[in-house]
């Protein structure tokens, strides 16, 4: 067991190096990282040379990469070109907000997907099953940013126009109310729903077909034959086998989910990491762009690693060789 975990961790290292190289290359493609500075006409060529030396941009590209990698590894992620803030602080400041959004979204996704998945599976081919299946096909095809706009229109704009209690258009809390639990939860509803729909729709389909597949297997027949009630068969035996692969699925979906946060956090003005990335992209704030990109990629790899190890620990059928 321990050697398996160790092996998986060691395997992740070249992957992380490769990712860092791709991140570095994609920014290197920008050409001139000092373009934002050189707009300023008062800079002389001496000044630019000094700036280049300061940021190490006069070195050959491989050396620049190694320097950058060393800095990233030692927690020296640089300062924003625009706000002069430490990039690590900028990310840490916004990370909790993104995590709140994540936690609410995943609670919503798993809760709704489990209920609908189980109900559609045990009532296969019923009207309910058909309607949920149709809805989940719609959900999978919905562009989430458009869904966000529609939800804002319905629940923020229309409800308010009709004088009904409505949800806020965006932001994390009203300045007049302060950052209270009630305020934040009122504000998190719409972005969380928007972020959840596509993933939730996919999980409903997965859970439904997975339960139906499991119900065909011999262990279910054995459990039923020994007189277990169908509810006990479902919850005590079948769901174990359905839920385990879901852990891997969540890990594989994480990159898409993170991509979603950029757009959703921008629409709802949610002060998270995705919005930080987007505002950095608008200003070509390269240190922030590189750091956020590497950060989300490393998070993805680490989460997938944890998912794999968790799976191996829980499922005795996986051999650790």
């Amino acid at each position, binding site marked *: 067991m321990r050697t398996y975990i160790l092996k998986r961790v060691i395997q992740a290292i*070249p*992957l992380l190096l*490769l*990712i860092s190289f*791709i*991140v570095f290359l*994609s*920014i290197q*493609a*920008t*050409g001139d990282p000092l*373009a934002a500075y050189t707009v300023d006409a008062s800079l002389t060529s001496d000044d630019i040379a000094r700036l280049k030396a300061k940021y190490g941009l006069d070195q050959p590209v491989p050396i620049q990469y190694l320097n950058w990698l060393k800095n990233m590894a030692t927690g020296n992620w640089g300062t924003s070109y625009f706000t002069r803030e430490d990039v690590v602080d900028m990310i840490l400041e916004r990370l909790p907000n993104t995590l709140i959004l994540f936690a609410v979204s995943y609670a919503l996704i798993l809760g709704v997907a489990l209920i609908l998945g189980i109900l559609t599976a045990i009532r*296969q*081919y019923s009207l309910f*099953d*058909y309607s949920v*299946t*149709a809805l989940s*096909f*719609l959900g*999978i*095809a*919905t*562009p989430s*940013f*458009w*869904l966000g*706009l*529609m939800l*804002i*229109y319905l629940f923020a*704009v229309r409800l308010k126009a009709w004088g009904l209690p409505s949800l806020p258009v965006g932001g994390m809390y009203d300045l007049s109310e302060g950052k209270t639990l009630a305020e934040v939860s009122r504000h998190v509803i719409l972005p969380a729903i928007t972020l959840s729909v596509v993933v939730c729709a996919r999980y409903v389909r997965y859970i439904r077909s997975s339960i139906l597949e499991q119900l065909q297997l011999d262990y279910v027949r054995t459990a039923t034959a020994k007189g277990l009630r169908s509810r006990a068969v479902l919850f005590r035996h079948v769901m174990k086998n359905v839920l385990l692969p879901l852990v891997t699925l969540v890990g594989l979906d994480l*990159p*898409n989910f*993170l*991509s*979603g946060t*950029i*757009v959703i956090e*921008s*629409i709802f003005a949610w002060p998270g990491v995705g919005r930080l*990335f*987007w505002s950095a*992209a*608008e200003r*070509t704030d390269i240190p922030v*762009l590189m750091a*956020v*990109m590497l950060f*989300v*990629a490393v998070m*993805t*790899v680490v989460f*997938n690693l944890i998912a794999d190890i968790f799976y191996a620990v829980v499922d005795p059928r996986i051999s650790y060789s």
Partner: protein
Amino acid sequence: MTGSSDTSRLRDTAPMADMAISGALARPPETMWTMFWQRFVRHRPAMVSLVVLLFLVVASFGVSLFVSEDEANLIDVQAMRNAPSWEHPFGTDDVGRDMFLRTLFGGQISLRIGLLAACISVVIGIAVGTISGYNTGWIDNVLMRITDALLSIPTLFILIVLTRVLGDHIGVGNIAFITLVIGTLSWMPTSRIVRAQVLSLKERDFVLGARSLGCQAGRILVRHIVPNTLAPVVVAATLDVGRAIIFEASLSFLGLGIQPPTATWGSMLNRAQAYLLNAPWIALFPGIMILVTVLCVNFLGDGLRDAFDPHSLR
């Protein structure tokens, strides 16, 4: 949905069996493609989707025969933010352009980007997958690690950086560039599918047969192995089309994709948020078009998957 077609398939097997006996000589022989087509037609959602998609393609490309693009981009300050009416079926936008015409012209670009990006992704995916599956060893290792790495970086992050930063050099909103970038960032699932197929196919007897007849590796790959991987690749490609359309729409929505006045479904949504209160139709119609297109493309993929599967009931 699949359930209804399942039962209809079952119902049809009995008369089919009779026909097979009495009419075996009268009917033309079944080829792979007629059998494929028969199975595809049975998948009703996929058939409907095919018709809808063909209609969308004809409508958005056909509109150029009657109206010029300049007319669709005509600014009319007399008709700003008009609600849908007979004159403007989808209403008008914030500068009085007819949303119906713009939705059609937008479809040209969105559909074109979706199809071309999927083609690029398929070509790269097949190339990487075959090379990697046929040559085990370090080439396979390197290619698969690159695939893993690209899968670990959320695509929209790289897309934004590349379009934002390279956009300053190439020109923001260059359609060919955006297509190329989306295509080169979505081949990874395809390459994994192809690799898995090649790994199993290259051990089959027909490959051994070809090799013992003196066939070169390149010829074995192109003539014998790649054609056998195409079925799952086509299914994956349909999903790529949907993904590419949504990626382009996301980029354009953020203002990094296709630039005004050129319409795409995403760029039309770009400024819709500011007018949600007074003119919600600006946001409504382009989004519905994306939804319908992606939905149909997904159903088409489902239908193709069933039709390619020789085990599915006829």
